[in-house]
């Protein structure tokens, strides 16, 4: 088993009466791209800030690279690269100077730093913009600069806090490809986002957070297996009678249905040939149908089912 890079145990952080993190625990292994998924306000950024010792917390332990993380753990901080949600660069400096400054906080050797800065510029594709000031860059380029400033010193652990917020699709893809490449080069990555498709595409393991608590953790497949839904079938059909809907609802493995007058949605849990059975019922009743879709559950379904129905309802 690979060595633990980040270990959080029973972390509690309160802002007055508000509990931002409620006995939150995590264990991230070397070489993982670990996704922290949750809606806004679920505690992702608070977790990151506690992890980096930027924020004090009320209870719990944090270990990084097997050592306790404190505000003065400078030798640990040397190995961490951080890419915050907001673009944190100096407007007064050029692209090159910005990367050089942040890299210089970790690397004192001038020659080595020069090489690292050049590599970071090439990595994020900002070569032709090296003399530009941040204000002259587009939103996507700014995000890339933000990433370059965080990874130039070649950290072993890279933390990305929603790096693709307000980024165009082209830049987003480039950023995601870049993160995957950093991981291939040996870095462990913690990636927070509320974009589920990004997390699903990128992360090897995911923790879903809600209201400061971890409500599920595992690989994408493991998470999908946790929920009831295995298949969602949508059929375009007009004038379905209540009797037809009821008949379909009573089919094996069908646990829910919805009909809005044009689209008939059937939620299935397990089983095979669900689509054939449903189409058979419609054919028996001579229902003319349009397009038919069959979808496997996404992380979105997982998240909605766990937070929107199961756990939150139980808690309330």
């Amino acid at each position: 088993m690979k060595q633990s890079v980040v270990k959080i145990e029973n972390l509690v952080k309160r802002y007055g009466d508000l509990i931002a993190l409620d006995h939150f625990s995590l264990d991230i292994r070397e070489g993982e791209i670990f996704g922290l998924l949750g809606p806004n306000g679920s505690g992702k950024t608070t977790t990151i800030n506690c992890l980096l010792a930027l924020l004090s917390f009320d209870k719990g332990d944090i270990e990084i690279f097997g050592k306790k993380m404190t505000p003065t753990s400078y030798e640990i901080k040397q190995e961490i690269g951080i890419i915050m949600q907001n673009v944190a660069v100096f407007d007064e400096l050029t692209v090159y100077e910005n990367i050089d400054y942040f890299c210089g906080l970790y690397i004192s050797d001038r020659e080595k730093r020069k090489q690292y800065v050049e590599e970071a510029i090439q990595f994020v594709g900002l070569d032709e913009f090296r003399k530009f000031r941040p204000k002259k860059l587009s939103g996507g380029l700014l995000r890339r600069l933000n990433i370059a400033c965080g990874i130039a010193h070649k950290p072993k652990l890279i933390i990305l806090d929603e790096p693709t917020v307000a980024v165009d699709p082209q830049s987003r893809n480039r950023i995601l490809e870049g993160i995957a490449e950093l991981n291939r080069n040996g870095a462990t990555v913690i990636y927070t986002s509320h974009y589920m498709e990004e997390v699903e595409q990128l992360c090897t393991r995911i923790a879903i957070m809600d209201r400061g608590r971890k409500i599920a953790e595992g690989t994408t497949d493991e998470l999908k297996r946790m929920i009831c839904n295995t298949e969602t079938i949508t059929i375009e059909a007009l004038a379905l009678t209540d009797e037809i809907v009821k008949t379909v609802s009573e089919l094996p493995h069908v646990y829910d249905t919805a009909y809005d007058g044009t689209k008939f949605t059937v939620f299935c849990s397990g089983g095979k040939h669900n689509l054939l059975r449903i189409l058979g019922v419609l054919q028996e009743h001579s229902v003319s149908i349009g397009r038919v879709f069959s979808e496997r559950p996404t992380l979105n379904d997982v998240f909605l089912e766990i937070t929107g129905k199961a756990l939150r309802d139980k808690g309330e």
Partner: protein
Amino acid sequence: MQVFKLFLKILRKKTAVALIYFAVFITLIIAMTYTNNQTAVFEQKRLNICVFDEDDTPESRALSALIAKENDIISLENDRDVLLDALYYEQADYILTVRRGYAEKLGSGSADSLFDNMYMHDSYATAYMEQYLNEYVRTVRGYLAAGKSQDEAVGAAADAVSAKTDVSIAAEESRQSALSEKAALYFRYLPYILISTLMNVMCPVLLAITRKDVRFRTNCSGLPPTRGTMQIFAGSAIFVSITWLLFAVIGCAINGSLSSSELWLALLNSSVFLLFSAALTVFVASFNPETGKINILTQIISLGMCFLCGVFVEQPLLGEKVLRAARFLPAYWYIKVTRMLDGSEVYQRNTVITAILMELGFAAVTAILTVLIRRLKYSRSGISVSA
């Protein structure tokens, strides 16, 4: 030394702005110093008046004589073109013709058509003479109405309008100091310049470096926050020292001689005030004002303090209440020392030491307040580390 280098790098990017401020302020201060050094003595100006007396009576001759007392009477040919030329080329300021029947009309109390006059419009000489003649005629009529004879009324009116008000301008005549008058003025205006320069140039640099998001990123690195703060302090100290050195050299150059102890005390006084200005700049920066508002804040603070404390207006001319309030500002104590050094007040060693210590105290209090505010801000946001 990454943060130190960053400070200097950002400062260098603001060099153009800094140089503009330096140039403007140095020009301003030198202009103020050199235009404010005239000996303050009131001197009455004499106008060139040409008088044509068509009435030729004792009354009209008395008026001509009265005008001649305080002005120069010039003779010109009574030709319209000649007179207009004289006015145009400023040989004459005012041309007065006392019309025939002047004495008779004056005696009857009439003020109509007593004079004909030619003048340049909107000149102060015209305004003065019009007012002078009106006042004279009104006074004569007043005496006549009071029952005096025409001769007596003319004589009394002449005495009345000749009455003088002694004008003296407050000046430090007893001034005895080795500090030259120009250097004294230069050091007097220095608080305004020091506060303005430091706040306008250093505040934006501090704001850029301590901006929340970049500070977070810096705090995530292996650089201990204390070391980062020390590097910012070192960068600030270099800028502040260069600023002081520049203004000190100019002060010495204006004074001419380096041998006077007053000059060295003035330099010490300015360096202590500079410390306060630097502390004030960091204090203002700790509130994270918008960059665009720094200049407005600077003007409010520097002008407000300088007006209240006697930089632009001499302290003895300020009200007692104003001075009492000004004691709670460091510029008051700075000016107190400056006034003793330039001989405006009697030099008292203890007062000078007290005043300089007061300035130091203000600098220390401002620095402590800055630290407290920063700690308060961090404790409120739950931040465990700060740069």
